[in-house]
């Protein structure tokens, strides 16, 4: 258990990459990319976690209560917002590429050969 969560992060990274490399559909590829990105959430979250500590919100608990690391959570928050906006850009590019060429398979979107 002690390192399980870390290994889940590595797993998500690799699985997502596998999906990207084997993808036959641009939208599928972009979603696999979001799985790759989610691996960073898991690793950050695990690094900041402390067994038995509270969430870093001191509303009903005194400020001296041991709490988990708020910094990694702030980084994750940034990361999530960044991810979704980049996904929007990628999806816009993909649907336009489809509208102009009628092609969604990344293996056949090869105008740039050579």
């Amino acid at each position, binding site marked *: 258990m002690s390192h399980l969560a870390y290994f889940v992060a590595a797993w998500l990274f690799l699985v997502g990459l596998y999906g*990207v490399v084997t993808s036959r559909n641009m939208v599928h590829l*972009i979603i696999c*990319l979001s799985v790759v990105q989610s*691996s960073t959430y898991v690793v950050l979250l695990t690094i900041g976690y402390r067994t038995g500590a509270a969430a870093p919100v001191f509303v009903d608990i005194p400020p001296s209560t041991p709490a988990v690391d708020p910094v990694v959570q702030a980084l994750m928050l940034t990361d999530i917002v960044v991810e979704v906006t*980049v996904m929007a*850009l990628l999806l816009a590019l993909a649907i336009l590429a489809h509208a102009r060429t009628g092609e969604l398979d*990344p293996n056949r*979107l*090869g105008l740039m*050969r050579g």
Partner: protein
Amino acid sequence: MAPPITVALPLATAAAVAACHRWIPRWPALLLSAGASLAVAALGVSLALDASHSGLLLYWFGEWTPRTGHAIGIDFAIDPTGAMLLVISATLVTFAIVFAFRYFDTAGQFFQVLMLIFLAALAGFSLTGDLFNLFVFFELMSAAAFALCGYKSEEPAPLQGALNFAVTNTIGAVLVLTGIALLYGRTGALNFAQIGRTLGGRSDVLVLAAFAFIVCGFLVKAAVVPFHFWLADAHAVAPTPVCVIFSGIMVEMGLYAVVRIYWTVFSGALGPFHNELRNLLMAFGAATALVGAVMCYAQRHLKRLLAFSTISHVGILLLGIGLLSPEALGGVGVKLLGHAMTKGGLFLAAGILLHRTGSVDEIDLHGRGRHLGWLAFLFFFGAAGLAGCPPFATFWGGVMLNQAAGRLGYHWITWVALGGEIVTAAAIFRFTSRVFLGWGTAHGVLIAGAARIPEKPDTQGGHEHTPFAMYASATVLALLGAAAGMVPHLTRVAHSAALRMENRAAYAARVLDGVASAAPAARDTSATFPDLAQGCGAVAAALLLAWLTVCSPSARRALGSFHPLRRAVQYLRDVHSGIIPDYVAWLVFGVAVFGGVACSWVLWHATIPAQLR
């Protein structure tokens, strides 16, 4: 006061232009955005002067100064190198905005908005002293760049180019963030100086893996082989003013991040592996310089040709960085400055060619540029600059690099760099002679199989006249590349900046404890006769190579029947497939090689006793 303005001013201007884009005409928007980026350039100059005078300038956002040697907030730690990169960025953005004013027919204001955001990202990236903040600006740069790359969204090619660019760079960003997370898990710090101090001199698999991930992530942006595929695709399709920024500074920022992070964070922990790291970085650099040069010579599409030339030059810069010596790093800085201006001028010239003729294809345009004499001169001038001809800044960078390499006993990198410079310059000479002078035939042996990207010009149709702003900005930028080389004591300033950049202890003492250090003792580099001969000889060799390819049928026939070369070029063409899954596979391959080699050092040191090594 000045440091945060370099980021806040372009951002606020961008938001203002975006808010009113429906209601204000083009002129005020242009004045506002060009003015903002010019102001940033001016601030950059003052910061650079200040920093070279009094050492590292520190700025803590929100007044969160370090407590008992621990950073709490985010800082800008401005040294001459960072400030100089800011000046280059702001200069290029200003020229690109001015050039583009008469260039686009639609949505010109969104172009300005994204360019300003791009500038803010470049500014933050070059000044920041915090690892996660660096990542944020890295992503900001990417977000603006992806959209700018696909600007001509009515055609299929730009969309594919932007997709290739966006997917590979997003994976690069995830790699960087993973590395940051690993470092945070070990040190609980995000500030460069803080991480470096906490890591100390200890290194294990974690430190090397974090190093490999972060470096590989930034090398994706820097387009080092085998992470480079996206660059040629993106440059071939992006509007030319955007290419100026991509080639001139964005790619180099990837290298800057590697240098900054290595010297402030890892140089202590990786101390024992100094020599191994040198070889690893130089191997990647040499591969990049050579692959870039060969692919550059095998192109017929001018923008793609220039893109591969950028890849080759990035390889040369990485060779210099890999020497891990302050003198070589100074040379890299000077070379980068010269390359940014010269390549920027070349791309703007390519934009004028596209504007006038509606194409940038070497074979289609054969002899069609005879009436564009000034443009031919600009290409000739720029190619000479790329070859490292005196007095261009690239020449002085080359001299510093060669002397450092000679002192360390790595004479071979001089030859690799020279080869890359000659071939990339020759490719431009070849293009110029075919298109503007009408030499040779419309056929090329090497370039017949090259990508022929269907393309509409950035503006509608061929034009009879070139707006003055276009010629002026291309000419001035190209001249700046030569003028920069004539700045007195340029080499000494660069040497001093590099010495400051490589001093990890002084950096940490200034950032965390507020202790300033004395100015380093830097010296001028003077060019000897062989250096001058080498610079001029490179231009002559490039001209000869171009002439042989274009005008000498027997040389062409010999080239055509030289099978190993043809096969190599054919193999490289097949590898540059334009297919995203292939690119991603190569990317993972690069990470595996870099990371595998780096991690093997630890195993090597851990298992083999010191006396046997």
